[in-house]
């Protein structure tokens, strides 16, 4: 039997007829399939250890030394280390989620995703899970090394809530990443410039290196709009219980609820935008076609 022959369907009509279980299984496999290059990539390119861990860790260390020079309260060192760990996720959102569909189009992958019998949401979920794996490793290294090196003492009373807030932050953050991915593609602008434009401002208003409450009104706006800001504020409250400097803009449980809303909103919005992208791609002949 020829090596080309795999599994036969007796007619195209039969081959096209999938039950619900097979359809769902294919979506789940697509998530895994698209996550795979990122999971493998983390192993296969050792240079990422330098660029993704060591260099950003130097920035975190710089803030630690500034706070120490100013005799700032010890919790501030912890705030910076926690913020440094969370930086990994925002960078991943910008460069490997938001800009990704734009680049996938140029590579010709987007066209293949559209012609496969899967939802683009599965592709984005796959990217998100793969990205979470990569960034999670980096964040864990920064957190562990930073906490050990700079003697950070965490004071956690509600571990479950802290974990829940972390995962809700990830859901909202990667939901935003999915929305941005669609937006970058639709905008037709250079993804590189858009990512650059969003990187530092979000660092600042999210309070990566200081409690966001210190920003006053701007901090409140950030809490209401940026998952990183609200997630970090809630995590600081839960990781440094008893610190007078860890007061959040809102109580942690309330911020957790905001994160639930954000996750639902962003994932729903991403789904809607992907539908719009496919419609536009088919009607106008742009987006999926390289060079248009």
């Amino acid at each position, binding site marked *: 039997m020829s090596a080309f022959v795999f599994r036969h369907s007796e007619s195209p*009509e039969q081959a096209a007829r999938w039950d619900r279980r097979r359809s769902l299984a294919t979506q789940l496999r697509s998530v895994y399939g698209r996550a795979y290059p990122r999971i493998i990539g983390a192993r296969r390119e050792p240079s990422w250890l330098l660029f993704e861990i060591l260099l950003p860790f130097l920035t975190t260390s710089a803030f630690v030394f500034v706070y120490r020079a100013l005799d700032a309260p010890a919790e501030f060192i912890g705030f910076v280390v926690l913020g440094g760990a969370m930086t990994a996720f925002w960078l991943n959102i910008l460069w490997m989620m938001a800009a990704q569909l734009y680049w996938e189009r140029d590579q010709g992958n987007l066209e293949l995703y559209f012609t496969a019998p899967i939802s683009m949401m599965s592709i984005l979920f796959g990217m998100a899970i793969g990205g979470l794996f990569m960034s999670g490793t980096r964040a864990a290294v920064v957190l562990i090394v930073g906490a050990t090196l700079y003697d950070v003492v965490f004071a956690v009373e509600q571990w479950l809530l802290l974990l829940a807030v972390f995962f809700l932050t990830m859901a909202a953050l990667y939901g935003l990443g999915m929305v941005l991915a669609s937006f970058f593609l639709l905008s037709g602008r250079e993804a590189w410039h858009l990512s650059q434009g969003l990187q530092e401002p979000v660092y600042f208003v999210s309070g990566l290196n200081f409690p966001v409450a210190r920003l006053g009104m701007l901090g409140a706006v950030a809490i209401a709009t940026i998952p990183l800001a609200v997630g970090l504020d809630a995590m600081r409250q839960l990781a440094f219980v008893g610190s007078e400097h860890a007061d959040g803009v809102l109580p942690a449980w309330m911020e957790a609820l905001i994160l639930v809303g954000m996750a639902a909103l962003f994932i729903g919005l991403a789904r809607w935008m992907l539908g719009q992208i496919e419609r536009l791609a*088919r*009607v106008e002949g742009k987006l999926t076609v390289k060079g248009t």
Partner: protein
Amino acid sequence: MRAACRGIGEPAPMKGPRRYGRFARPHAQRYHRELIVSVSPTSLAIDARAVRRVYKAKPEPIVALDGVDLQVEPGELFGLLGPNGAGKTTLIKVLTTLLLPTSGTARVFGFDVARQTTELRRIMNIVSGGEQSGYGLLHVREQLWMFSQFYGLGVRDGWRRVDQLIEAVGLTEQRLQKVSSLSTGQRQKLNLARGLLNDPWILFLDEPTLGLDVSAARQTRELVQQWQRALPGRTILLTSHYMAEVDELCDRLAIVDRGRILASGTSAELKRRVQRESIFLLEVDRLPGGHQALAAVRGVLSAVEPTAHDLGSAADRQTVSVKLTLDDDAALGGVVGELGRMGASIVALAKSEPTLEDVFVELVGRGFAEREQEPAEKVR
């Protein structure tokens, strides 16, 4: 008549359709009946009717497809031949659900390309020339496995299928090599393997040998033929602007220009449109009666000394060459008899065929290269 033509609309008989290959036709009919609600009652692999596609552009919209009618039978290897910008890729994008037709309808195995995209995507695949899809850091094996997951192959089934295809396309040695390190030819083999992962009933090949060297292009063509031989019911729609490729591979073809199908049929049928007489190049050791003696044979329209262009490599030989124009191939018997009477021996005899380029020139009035220099068609 399955391929409707615009411009020259002459019906063209075709090779016997292979239908659903080794599987009994009653199967297809049974499933067809079961799905009668969702699938159009047709046995055609491709059925495009009056498909028009206009792109928005400034200052004027561009007509990429202008009322294309195309019918392709299951099991056919059908070629779309035309210069760059003729509308071949746009038609493929419409048929693969990437583009909606501005007007007209198109069905692939009965599935409407506008409305039944999910079903259609399960049974088709597409491979383009110069494709750089996937991720360079993955190994060949991993890249194919990743794509297999998008078609619902289980984890183990996926790996098994990938290994089979790697062997089939001849990438066994490169299976653990990074995709980024493959040569262009190897890369195209990988793309072809990707296109076969889901065991498609219809495979769209958009300029599959574009940018490949002669050897790699030949290997790609051989793989395409091997695949179709292994699974006879499968259909291929191939676009190309390489005439020899279409001539060699395709059961039937359509010549496309400015978004219209100008003519379609088998390669031989199309060539017959530009040449109704039979032309032979005859090479003999001597010709005592001269060219006139052959011209007098019944059925011979002319017997003349060929030009250097006609002769090619035979020009330097110490023989006598004759360009024979016959009203029918059967007249050749009389020529051979006359040569025998003269005591001449035949050194070589070759039938001179027109090329598809000749057909294109006849239909369009210009060659491919000249046509590609012209601006795109604007909307009227």
